[in-house]
């Protein structure tokens, strides 16, 4: 079955995420699970309650 994007594949022109140039000042995010079952999210502080 022919694909309409096959031509891009065989020419190496299909763009994948790793091929895209990174925008300037790009931010990164990481996902993690909370260690607190039920709590309030404070703004920004990395140093914690006693910091």
């Amino acid at each position, binding site marked *: 079955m022919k*694909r309409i994007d096959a031509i891009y594949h065989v020419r190496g022109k299909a763009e994948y995420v790793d091929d895209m140039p990174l925008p300037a000042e790009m931010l990164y995010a990481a996902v993690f699970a909370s260690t607190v079952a039920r709590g309030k999210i404070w703004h920004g502080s990395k140093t914690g309650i006693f910091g």
Partner: protein
Amino acid sequence: MTGQIHFILNERTVCTSQPPGITVLDYLRSWERLTGTKEGCKEGGCGACTVLLGELQGSKLVYKTVLSCLLPLGELSGKHLVTIEGLNKEQLSPIQQALVDYGATQCGFCTPGIVMSLTGYLLASEKDIDEAGIKTALNNNLCRCTGYAAIKLAGSALVQSLGNGGVRNLENWIDKGILPEYFRDIPSRLRQLPRTAKRLAEGAASLTSSRSLSESENGKVLPEFIIAGGTDLYVQQGDILAESTVRLLNQSPQMKGITTDGDFIHIGALTTFAEFANHPAIIKLIPHIQEYIRRIASWSIRQRATVGGNIISASPIGDISVLLLALNADLVLQAGDNVRKVPLRGFFRGYKKTGKEPAEILTEIVVSTPASAIKFNSEKVSKRQYLDCAAVNSAIAIRCTGDTILEISISMGGVAPIPLFLKQTSNYLIGNQVTQEAIAGAFPILQGEISPIGDIHGSASYKRLLARQLLIAHFTKLFPGFIAVKDFYETN
């Protein structure tokens, strides 16, 4: 120690001061922004990074299919690097068109690598292309999506349309639309390239240099890496290599090639696995070498990986090391004007540690040509049949009269921190006849001589079983008239 590296990249002549130790893959994607060449595994397994590297050999322009994730930038000096972008013309090439026509792409990530491998096969093929050759060429590339069927059909179609094409040369391939027109000028343009970074070449070729650590840059002492093929080094230490000074041994022609002088076979340390397996002297010594070599890496890696590299990287399962241990090879080590010759047996001192001094370079491996006929066998057990490390591997060289063993050397990898020459097991079997009793008598000695540990390749007890089975396999393969596998079924 950076010079400038002059080469031709697709259609452009390039001069770069980027470090010679970075991979061509990183150079292409990050510096040149040519993102058609993909990063899949970064360890030579997937082929998404495949490029073509053209070099003048005499008057002939020869292209090799190379994995750019394992290729140091410095190796491009004086050569023509071709990426998928460099193969593109207005019209699709017959290879590209076949892949489109047969629906041989899905996500398309592996596709540039497949186009490169197939193109490389066409360019390198000395005879008519055929389906077996297409299949071998594609050993270089993994595809997760298509299941390969459509790719194979595209390959068969190419054999139909391009096979029996007559004279196989560059002009031919340009006329058939495999390569763009600009390739016509490449030979003359390569001759005009400045003799690149002479210091790079001199540093590597000069065996009188005995520094093992480079001068510091910014006060930080960078370890200097000596790189032959780089096919193991870039997998193990790719990140460090990018910011280290490197010595590229491939600039030293005196370490290449195999010569014979009646009593000895001299194997240059830079002999590639492919050259090793194709050499008549090796084929005479190890008749099944071409079949066995296919169990080691892949055909494109075999064009880069070197015999010397396999020994110096000192892996306990080094396939070539295990072969050479059974052949009782000697090593020639050189530092400056000091040359010494040491036996390979005894060269491995501990896990990945050898008897090589830091300032030395392994230049040559010497094997005696047997005075009379020996039988040779090798075995490799690995989870995947191809492109995989051994769990346990083994080699045997044996001379008999009738069924009596006169001389025997057995080596084994994967059963100790180093590749082993099984001295006690071999000695035990001398003088014995090739019978089930004699071989079974060797089992306890074999088990006493090895010390496998459990790891991803298998448990210690599994490896002990493999050791026993491979010993049996050597004899049942070499002496089918004297002994059969079923003779061992009932024994412990």
